[in-house]
């Protein structure tokens, strides 16, 4: 009997599925009218805790996309730049940092029409105190 029903259903197999889908909540959201929050562990933009950064350059050495650059004037006097348009949010800088200074948060909405917005000075310790 089951085989007969299956044979009959094979002519329009997906009909029960589409009626079930019609009366349930849709799986997509009407973005951007409805906002979307990524999970906590999502790898988004690079952020810094400037007090902890000593300018060792481990993150710069290990970045696969050359998105970080360090300009050293003298010991303790440096500037760390970040090129957001080259960054791939891989998280290697967070892993390489031994001083818990650079980390990734889960923000991802960063569109801009101006190239200038993608260059960021993360740490500026060039002025002598």
């Amino acid at each position, binding site marked *: 009997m089951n085989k007969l029903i*299956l044979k009959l*259903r*094979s*002519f329009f*197999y*997906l009909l029960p*599925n*589409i009626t079930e889908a019609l009366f349930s909540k849709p*799986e997509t959201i009407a973005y951007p009218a409805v906002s979307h929050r*990524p*999970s906590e*562990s*999502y*790898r988004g933009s690079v952020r810094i805790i400037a007090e902890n950064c000593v300018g060792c350059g481990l993150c710069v050495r*290990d*970045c*696969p*996309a050359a998105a970080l650059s360090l300009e050293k004037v003298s010991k303790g006097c440096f500037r760390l730049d970040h090129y957001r348009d080259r960054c*791939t*949010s*891989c*998280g*290697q800088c967070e*892993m390489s940092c031994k001083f818990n200074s650079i980390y*990734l948060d889960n923000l991802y909405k960063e569109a801009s029409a101006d190239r200038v917005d993608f260059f960021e000075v993360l740490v500026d310790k060039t002025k002598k105190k």
Partner: protein
Amino acid sequence: MSKITVPIGPQHPLLKEPLSFLVSLEGEKVIDSTLRLGYVHRGIEKLAEQRTYIQNAYLIERICGICSHIHSTTYCQSVEALLKLEVPKRGLYIRMLLCELERIHSHLLWLGVLAKNIGLNTLFMYAWRDREIVLNIMEEISGGRVSHAVNIIGGVRVDLNEKHLSLLQKSLQELNMRVDEILQSIENDRSFRARTRNIGCLSLEDIKRYCVVGPVARASGLDIDIRRDAPYAAYDELSFEVPLMTEGDVWARSILRILETIQAIRLCTQIIHNLPKGPVSVSAPRRVPAGEVVSRAEAPRGEVFYYVRSDGSQNPARLKVRTPTLTTLITLPGQLKNMQLADVSAVIAGVDLCIACGDR
């Protein structure tokens, strides 16, 4: 009757990635076809020689978006073999978990693309809706839906806690139900069968002549699977079956891939139940001693093959990648003899091309 050449050209709604495929038709019947690659060649093998081993792990991931984790697994395996490192068991299990999750996601993506190409948009949407479950798991574990960045030389860099494990268990149960339903739909729906039965047949002799690997070979009767024949990353501690079919047409490949998905879900369940305790990685030195090594793994599309040669510095001297798509691409003109133009879309979708893998 006159001959027409239809360019399934670099840009076409049929293809996910650019590929130049010129099909010569007489009426609706295909007579001849020529293939041309190279539109997505990025020179990754040359770029890898200019970066350190640590940076290469991220570069290698970007060879392909769908099978990114397998590429980085094979790369890390080969460098660990050169360094003679022993990765802790927990790290190997997490690597395997993500490999199998990626297999599930790749097969569901492929099913959606095949269904879209033959006009069954509903199955496309259903398969990709189920794929969202897998992508959400991967986002929770690794931080990225498609680019995971989990492998480092010496192990993995993420760990699974209780929250991840319970999420995994719940999601895998739901996924099991949905994939079973998808299997029933493919096996029984008449319009799907009408478009994929006896299309693009490859016999066992063709498979052996062109050295085809992966689900395309298994659908024609060749029983090879690197996870079982040459186990890597603790696959010898898990039990799974390798499905095999003999018809060799697009329909057999569909059924086979969904059966593989069910086996992958089974493997994931075993992994999360038998997860050993301990560290997930060991620290690796930056300089790799001189030597050469060959490493293989089972990507969703077949056997992926890496050759790494190092000369004692921080950068590799040569990195060679052979992806499974290259073997299946060569069979395309042979599959299309005496097919109609409408079957070209089913055949191209049926071999699951990943041109970015093929071009590197």
